[in-house]
């Protein structure tokens, strides 16, 4: 219990200056790279071992550019927000057959 309290105090104290540096770094990187989204934590690929599409139970493909998990068969993409894959069927995006990016977002 004491350890937990001390840990929390330490991280609380350390969070403020670290946050400031991270923000500054992110700003610098964003201006150079432009495309990469620095604020998104990386997706844990080991999850792909057992993640499947909830509708068809088929394996998914990870798309690093759009940061989504794609089910080619059904043509839907599940977004990954803050490193957490959102596997709720209502919030999946339909991928148009001819173009890469769909303009009609799915709504629950």
């Amino acid at each position, binding site marked *: 219990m004491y350890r*937990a309290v001390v*840990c*929390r105090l330490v*991280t609380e104290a350390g969070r403020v200056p670290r946050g400031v540096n991270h923000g500054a770094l992110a700003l610098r990187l964003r201006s150079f790279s432009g495309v990469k989204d620095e604020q998104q934590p990386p997706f*844990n690929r*080991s*999850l792909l071992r*057992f*993640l*499947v*599409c*909830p*509708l*068809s*139970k088929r*394996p998914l493909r990870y798309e690093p550019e759009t940061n989504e998990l794609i089910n080619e068969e*059904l043509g839907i993409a*599940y977004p990954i*927000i*803050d*490193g*957490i*894959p*959102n*596997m*709720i*069927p*209502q919030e*999946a995006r*339909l991928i148009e057959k001819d173009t890469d990016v769909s303009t*009609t977002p*799915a*709504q*629950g």
Partner: protein
Amino acid sequence: MAASVRLMLRRAVRLSHGKINVAAADTAARSGRRLAPSTCRCFGDAAGDRITHFGFETVPEAEKAKKVYKVFENVARHYDTMNDAMSLGIHRLWKDALLHAMHPQPGAQLLDVAGGTGDIAFRFLEYVRSQQERQKRRAARSMQTPSWRDISSSDQYASEDEAGPRESGAVVCDINKEMLKVGKRRAESAGVVAGLSWVAGDAEELPFDDDQFDVYTVAFGIRNVTRIDQALKEALRVLKPGGRFMCLEFSKVTNPVLARLYDAYSFNVIPALGEVIAADWKSYQYLVESIRKFPDQEEFKLMIEDAGFFCVKYYNLTGGVVALHSGFKL
């Protein structure tokens, strides 16, 4: 638009992958009895017109999920504080009891559904880590006077193969992203990252492959699921053969005096606490009412057996305020 697409996809998938439904029908026929759920779940025709309960209210099934989502979105920030306040800290003992009953060994994979802020997952990882340390200590003690063979094959001189294939992991799955965010933040501030994953998913349609997990837990979440039988079937699907289903849920208090006190406490103190701490009377009113609408220990045991689990048992904690149900996939 997506709702209709989803229905269409679901129907297509169900037609082509009919084996799951056939298996479920088999177990239902085998069990012989079909009790009328006292929770008045299925009224109306099969066109999706069914009504269910949301606390003491009656709502269409389609609405319940949305309303429950709203409730947890509102309470997510104060969830842990409220748990401590409402249960006077006893919820920690209940969750510890769950872990002790589970007694996971290093290498076990856990799926914690409706895990929200990750209480069970944290305890699981902690338990497994202490088990691993205990095993190492036991091994060290038994090697006080090692022979040359023991020394040459020991950890110091050989590669660390033991730790590799026996990595245990916990996956926390919750339909509510706010709860997951709170949980992830807690994990990061506690420095627990290895072996812990967070997924947003529906308990009735789990995004996991068959036969993946050693233990499936759902702590104080299953009463919020719209179709409990569907969630139980999914639990059966994702568990490995020999895997264990464990459910902590509020249940019927056996002692009538305690029941009277518990009711008074639930309906008067808890929503008031919710108003004071989280500024949300209605959400906590819902939570208390949903406890009353949930089936009691025996009925839930029958539901678990109907889903296809074996050796289903339940243990009453705190006089029946909470029941721990356990079943195996064989």
